[in-house]
């Protein structure tokens, strides 16, 4: 039996985590191919409905990743993103969506290593957790 390959949608900010992902790539770091990156100008502009949409469309996890505190290009978008992710984790847990399926991290532009490690760990975690229920519900 082939092993479950989770699909992970990652909303990453242009200034930090996207640059880190780019660095991981150009540095030839080995990364699992399960992550679909969506480049945003700031995690502060990730509307909750994008995340809900991804999870209802069958993504097994969503990663939101921006700049470290104090580094946000727009001063405090990362803090606003944190509140929204918290809100969604609370909300989605009501419907049996494990909070681990929505992860928030802060990865700086120079931290290609961190990005590669975060993604690898997340893939393993979600692989162990199994597929998102939304994949099996056709009537959403």
């Amino acid at each position, binding site marked *: 039996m082939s092993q479950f390959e989770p699909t992970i949608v990652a909303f990453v900010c242009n200034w930090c985590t996207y640059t880190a992902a780019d660095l991981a790539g150009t540095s030839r770091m080995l990364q699992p191919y399960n992550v679909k990156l969506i480049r945003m100008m700031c995690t502060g502009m990730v509307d*909750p*409905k994008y995340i*809900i*949409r991804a999870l*209802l469309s069958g993504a097994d996890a969503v990663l939101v990743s921006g700049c*470290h*505190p*104090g580094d946000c290009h727009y001063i*405090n978008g990362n*803090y*606003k993103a*944190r*509140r*929204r*992710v*918290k*809100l*969604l984790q*609370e*909300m*989605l*847990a*009501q*419907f*049996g*969506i494990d909070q681990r399926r929505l992860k*928030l*991290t*802060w990865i700086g532009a120079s931290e290609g290593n961190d990005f590669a490690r975060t993604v690898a760990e997340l893939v393993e975690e979600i692989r162990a957790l199994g597929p998102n*229920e*939304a994949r*099996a*519900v*056709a*009537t*959403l």
Partner: protein
Amino acid sequence: MATIARIDIDETGPVRAVQGFLKTLLARGGVDAVLTPAHLVPAGTVMPTLISDPEALERADPLSPAFPLNAARLVSRLTRGSTSGRHVAAVLRPCEIRAFIELVKLNQGGLDNVLLIGLDCPGAMTNADFRVFGLEGDPLERTREFLRAVAGGESRPGGRSLAGACRVCEHPAPEGADLILGLHGADLDRAIPVLGNTARGEGVLTRLGLPDAPGAPGRREALDALTARNTAARDAMFEATAARTASLAGLAEYLSGCVNCYNCRVACPVCYCKECVFLTDVFDYKPDQYLGWARKRGAIKLPADTVFFHLTRLAHMSTACVGCGQCSNACPNDVPVMELFRTVAERTQGAFGYQPGRSPDEAPPMTVFREDEFSEMTGEAH
């Protein structure tokens, strides 16, 4: 010491007495008009009505069990950006006041030119039930009958259940009002206490020249008993709703009667966006998209995006949900929307320690942040 006056009730009953109070308010309270539920025509239903002619107050009936819509948005319209210096008094249920305070925080209304008169809320009926109960016979007599039944502790006043939202309402007193009509525990054959609840309310009350009341005897006890009963019913409702929606499949089944009419969004007093994203073309798809989904999943329900709509609305406004139940009242297919929203709101409001409508000074959770919070989410010290 809070000021407490009283509205004396004669043989014509409590509704006439409240009408008399509103007339006094128009004459001496420094307001130019009163927004109050009123019977539209002798046999018509009850709607919020802006009254400046004292004669027209003969149709006012804020004690009626009719609750056709949450009037918070109307008060918002009467106060937002007002520069005329004219004042309005609005007679509102507690959940209408809480919703209005949420709208004020979102810059959709102002407190400067409005006097909030809050009812100790006896509860309301659904629109469907009120059409059967309230439109037969003398409307004011029907209201009196309803109030007697509520005061007597009847679970089905007038032979009708109260609306689901009212049966689980843990805020039956209008905390944010300037003046409170203290119906809870009052003897409605004798007098209704009027409590000054803010400096502005007390100032107005002093001008009206109503007789003083020694207090509001029995009010605290009646309020505590009602709050305890409703809170227990609320917790049982939370448990039942959480069990039914504990999975996405359960949620889809729960919402299976939804036809995407968005009436719940229209009726929601705190869903205030001028252009809702669900009315834009953001979620209009090309035919191939639907066919692609059908092929990928084997089947796709149409209209699509039902669960998506409700989840998005929960994300946008569950922290502001005041539990008025107008979403359920507006649903043409009896989807228990209020129960779902309140159950999720309990979680989301709890996560931020937020109680909507409690105070205009408390910022909505998604509009602010602290640097030193939720650090466990990212594992950082900040």
